[in-house]
């Protein structure tokens, strides 16, 4: 069934009895051309692009829980392509372009809202750095706009410009950035992939990989063996655990990142704002809640919940730039498990086992990358060669010294 305005009206007049499930809850077959491990945003997007762009439809997405229950349902929904380095920016700009056409592509309202993102500037040195970043973005086909303090005051009159410690001196805006309804991304990709014949298999946990002479033959799961021509793993925070089943140690630590949402408020925050002197980013959801987050907790964790010191740190960041946030009550907070890589950049690559492919290391930037990650991983799975925009995301770059260290922190995952 194709969704459309006409369909909404027709169903409304007929008592909404014509809506079926958006995707089939499939049982595993014996063999697939491609098995994707992980039914999150990246895995489902990979399945969609494999089927729609590369004609590979004999595909299964297997998920240990329910689809969209991991980080794609646990983020702050921001999309942007404001990266500096050559290895990153073309990839994230492709992602933003895919977001722009996503809803037509998958026939699903993902509520892509290009409401703009502004990184605040608090010092002259930071302005210099952001001018450089903006120029790098423009060179790679993205949009960037430098705002002075007067322009900022026109757009966001209520920010804390006079703060003695971190005065706001301007901002770097990306107007095409914004937010997307995160759950709809998982559901939309699942539905689009399912319509092209992809099996989505839930409650199916991988327990091992079967290999012979260095070739991957398939996966052992809690629902039996599933044979596969190729296996792609996209399991975010669980990457180290799953790849350990294939005898691999990854350049990844799993860390917990917390996010927060307040009670619903009247519209006050038209775009996305990020604090430049601490780590704090905030937007307002369509329901009115202020959605915000900050740093990871900073220690290895698989707990999907964090501790109070970081809550305090994030709230201090919020109070520094928008003191009125202190009057809002916090409704919910949650944690997700980030696959923090050693240089802060992702990995989309083959492994030492033929037919086994890895998509991991998204740190806390995986949501915005969902479409490009899916497309690049589908390209790798279908052609065995890296996508043009993902050539730098090699697993062996830590051996060869070709790190993509956007933040210049070295091999210290909790600082990226």
């Amino acid at each position, binding site marked *: 069934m194709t969704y459309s305005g006409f369909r909404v009206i027709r169903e409304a007049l007929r008592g909404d009895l014509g809506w079926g499930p958006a995707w089939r809850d499939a049982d595993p077959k014996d063999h697939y051309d491609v098995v994707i491990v992980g039914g999150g945003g990246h895995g489902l997007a990979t399945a969609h692009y494999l089927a729609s762009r590369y004609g590979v439809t004999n595909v299964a997405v297997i998920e240990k829980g329910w689809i969209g229950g991991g980080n794609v349902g646990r983020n702050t929904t921001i999309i942007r392509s404001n990266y500096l380095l050559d290895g990153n920016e073309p990839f994230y700009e492709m992602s933003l372009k895919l977001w722009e056409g996503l809803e037509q592509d998958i026939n699903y309202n993902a509520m892509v809202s290009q409401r703009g993102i502004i990184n605040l500037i608090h010092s002259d040195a930071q302005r210099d750095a952001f001018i450089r970043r903006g120029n790098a973005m423009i060179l790679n086909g993205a949009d960037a706009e430098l705002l002075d303090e007067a322009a900022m005051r026109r757009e966001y009159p209520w920010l804390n410009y006079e703060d003695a410690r971190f005065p706001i001196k301007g901002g770097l805006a990306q107007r095409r950035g914004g937010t997307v309804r995160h759950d709809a991304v998982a559901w939309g990709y699942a539905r689009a992939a399912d319509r092209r014949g992809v099996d989505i298999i839930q409650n199916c946990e991988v327990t091992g990989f079967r290999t012979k002479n260095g070739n991957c033959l398939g996966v052992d799961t809690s629902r039996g063996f599933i044979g596969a021509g190729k296996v792609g793993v996209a399991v975010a925070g669980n990457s180290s655990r799953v790849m350990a089943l294939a005898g691999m140690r990854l350049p990844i*630590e799993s860390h917990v990142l917390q996010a927060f949402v307040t009670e619903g408020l009247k519209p006050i925050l038209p775009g996305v704002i990020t604090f430049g002197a601490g780590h704090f980013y905030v937007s307002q959801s369509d329901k009115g809640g202020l959605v915000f987050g900050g740093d990871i907790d900073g220690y290895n*964790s698989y707990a999907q919940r964090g501790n109070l010191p970081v809550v305090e740190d994030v709230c201090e960041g919020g109070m520094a730039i928008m003191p009125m946030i202190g009057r809002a009550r916090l409704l919910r907070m949650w944690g997700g498990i980030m696959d923090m890589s050693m240089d802060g950049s992702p990995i989309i690559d083959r492994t030492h086992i033929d037919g086994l492919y890895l998509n991991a290391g998204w740190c806390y930037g995986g949501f915005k990358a969902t479409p490009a990650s899916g497309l690049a991983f589908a390209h790798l799975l279908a052609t065995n060669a890296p996508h043009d925009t993902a050539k730098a995301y090699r697993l062996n770059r*830590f051996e060869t010294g070709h790190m993509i260290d956007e933040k210049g922190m070295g*091999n*210290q995952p909790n600082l990226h």
Partner: protein
Amino acid sequence: MIIDHPLFGPRDASEFVYLGDASLMDRPDWKSETAAQDFHAYAYLRDNPAGPHRELWFHEGGDRSWLVITRDTVTHEITRVELARDVARKQRAPQ
């Protein structure tokens, strides 16, 4: 999280800074034939277990001691706290 410091007793974890897996105490031998691969594994590859994890914490807001803490990464429960210097001495003691 509360870290039961061997010298000070229970302290809030916010006094401490996290470094990573305690295997970072075991630097490979730079004279070895396989030093390049060994240092790659040492610097970049991690076990990253879900469960008990031995890790290095620095008491920055205290006596600036390094600790080896055994902590469950699924529950955040801390089961053992040792001074890193004691661990290192034990490792280097002749067998």
